[in-house]
């Protein structure tokens, strides 16, 4: 009699334990069940729980890739810290850290399919299009109308860049003015100055090579960033047609003479004027090649300036060797970041999300971004502090350069569909190893663009 009783009890107990362990896997509170998620408003929430009568802060979710060694990690941390100090009693930002840009993009796209996007979203690299098409975000028009000061701080041009059919879908937090950095010592030894024309640019490459230097820090892995900045400059400065192309959102026809010419020139640069590992290399390889005195030039934005005086990233006193230049034909890549979108669903969380975005993109947020991340503000009111000017004179040069240049165009990443951005890493080796001509690559790009839904 005892054995069956024991067996039954054992079975029931096992089933109960199993059921409990399964149910424990799912918790309603997302901020508590994820090891990656971290609540960044401890003071505020703590205060709220101490006083039961006080209204609890509204929780909003926010995913960010600006963490760890990311160039903008410091500014992100400081913005959230200062927001909490100011608005922590009203809004609690639940931050989930995603330590890679591409992982962030993938996660957002998957969340968009299920219609479950975070309350605050960075709409980079096509995420904005997906969210707008899916009616998953709220436009800012009403909020901006209520706060003319904020509207002015962002500026008409930045707002226009993110407006579709009269609706402002995202608020940009930074302007990207991108030229290239060069090693002054290497330039001096090669007897050259920053090029004014593309012929001179190629001749500089040849002279640097003859002087025993690798001219360019290029990379074709990831999104081929440093390579494509030069490609964008080649296209964007090639007459009116090229400039129009580089200022068109989502171009669908890449089979143009400007594109083919640019690809041919880039082929030469990848074959003759860059590091041996450029094909397939990531951004870190290119940045390292420049910062460790292995290459003479790298195309990149001012956010890289801080790295030049960072002993963990650059050789000693490297910042004193670096100059900044515009691309040939007195031109510069100039774009507004897509910035932040409201993905919140309830009126309460929408307002809280707007408050967070308003802080990040307003005068305070932009100032933090400038001082902590060398990020070019969208507002003309904000100027770098004396301390920043002294610490990073190259940044002041970058601002001057942006004011002096006359031809502007956007980067490929900011205009093309995400599947084009992803395709470069497989197309450049094709071009360089002679599997496809520039004409064929241009046709292939057109086909890839047509595949995007």
């Amino acid at each position, binding site marked *: 009699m005892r054995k069956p009783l024991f067996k039954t009890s054992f079975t029931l107990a096992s089933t109960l334990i199993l059921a409990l362990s399964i149910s424990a896997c799912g918790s309603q509170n997302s901020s508590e069940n994820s090891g990656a998620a971290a609540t960044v408003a401890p003071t505020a929430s703590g205060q709220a729980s101490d006083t039961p009568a006080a209204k609890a802060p509204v929780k909003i979710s926010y995913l960010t890739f600006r963490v760890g060694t990311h160039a903008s990690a410091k500014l992100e941390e400081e913005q959230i810290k200062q927001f909490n100090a100011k608005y922590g009693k009203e809004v609690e930002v639940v931050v989930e850290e995603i330590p890679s840009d591409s992982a962030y993009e993938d996660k957002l796209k998957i969340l*968009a399919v299920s219609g479950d996007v975070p309350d605050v979203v960075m709409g980079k690299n*096509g995420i904005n299009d997906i969210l707008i098409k899916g009616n998953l975000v709220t436009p800012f028009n009403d909020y901006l109308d209520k706060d003319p000061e904020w509207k002015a701080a962002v500026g008409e041009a930045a707002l226009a860049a993110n407006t579709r059919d009269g609706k402002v879908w995202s608020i940009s937090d930074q302007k990207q003015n991108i030229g290239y950095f060069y090693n002054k010592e290497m330039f001096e030894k090669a007897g050259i100055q920053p090029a004014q024309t593309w012929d001179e640019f190629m001749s500089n490459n040849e002279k640097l090579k003859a002087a025993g230097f690798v001219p360019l820090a290029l990379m074709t892995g990831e999104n081929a960033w440093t390579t494509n900045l030069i490609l964008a400059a080649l296209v964007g400065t090639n007459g009116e047609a090229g400039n129009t192309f580089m200022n068109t959102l989502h171009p669908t026809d890449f089979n143009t003479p400007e594109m083919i010419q640019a690809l041919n020139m880039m082929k030469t640069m990848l074959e003759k004027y860059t590091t041996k*590992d450029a094909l*397939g290399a990531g951004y870190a390889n290119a940045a390292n090649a420049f910062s460790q005195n292995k290459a003479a030039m790298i195309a990149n934005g001012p956010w890289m300036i801080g790295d030049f005086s960072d002993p963990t990233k650059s050789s000693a006193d490297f910042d004193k060797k670096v100059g900044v230049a515009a691309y040939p034909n007195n031109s510069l890549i100039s774009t507004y970041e897509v910035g932040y979108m409201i993905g919140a669903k309830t009126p309460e969380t929408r307002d809280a999300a707007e408050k967070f975005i308003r802080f990040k993109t307003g005068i305070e947020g932009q100032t933090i971004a400038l001082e902590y991340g060398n990020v070019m503000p969208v507002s003309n009111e904000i100027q770098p502090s004396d301390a920043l000017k002294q610490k990073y004179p190259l940044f002041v040069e970058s601002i001057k350069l942006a004011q002096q240049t006359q031809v502007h165009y956007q980067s490929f990443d900011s205009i093309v569909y*995400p*599947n084009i951005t*992803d395709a470069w890493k*497989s197309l450049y080796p094709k071009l360089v*190893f002679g599997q*496809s001509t520039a004409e064929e690559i241009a046709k292939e790009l057109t086909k890839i663009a047509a595949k995007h839904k």
Partner: protein
Amino acid sequence: MVRKNKGYITLFLLPTVVLFIIVYAVSIVILFGTSFTEWSSGRKPVFIGLANYIQLFTDDSDFRKSFLNTGVWVLLQSTIHVAIGTVFAIILNMKEFYWKFARTVYMFPNIISGAAVGMLFLCMLNPDFGAVNSIVRLFGNADYAQNWFMDYTTAFFSVTMTWLPYAAVVTILILAEIAAIPESLFESARIDGASELKINFYIILPMLRNIIGTCVILAGTSMLQKMDIIMMTTGGGPGNETMNLPIYIYKTALMENNFGYSNSVGVFLIGFGLVFVLLCRNLFRIGSSQN
């Protein structure tokens, strides 16, 4: 007794079955259903019949290349990889002085995450500072700069070498099976004058049929989900030279925002996996007696 046991079996299987239905079965049904639709992120699926499948088989060279690569990798993994693991297990079974050390060292690549292995190979095969090119340069060819992962002639081989030789899981499984073979069989063979080589060929290997079949299935199907190392090293390139079906699914879904089409590739991949498993089961008569 049998009746009583049936009750317990049902009770203990129930949670697993429920979990399977929730996690896999529902997903597979949705996957299958949406493969007949045009569906992109932010839009509702629209039924388009067999259009995705027709495009897949008639007008998609990337799919054909991905399928071909996946097939070749499944074949290599289920033959060469398993053979390496089996031979290594038989050598270890001889219990020479080095066997424990060799077993531990051989396990290393299998306990490191795929992403870390990818990074390791990226560094080792770097054209500029990688160990492989540096060694070649030491032997006189100062300008040697082979781009192993991006050159069309070496990319497929290089990626394959990041996983093909490391068959420690196969080795462990085979070693466990060898340990289960009755010692009396070996003793009888030795009394009859059989050499170690003959014992390996005529006693051990035939008795490993079931476990080798299992290893072939495990190794082959692992190639149907291989993604991490390829993403870390070549991303499917150069061109589509190292693209496989999982990478193609990822690209069509998340880069082209074409979830319906991506799901039709997913259905094909599941079908391919099922056919492979059934073939292996029949080939190795898994589950049937060793005799």
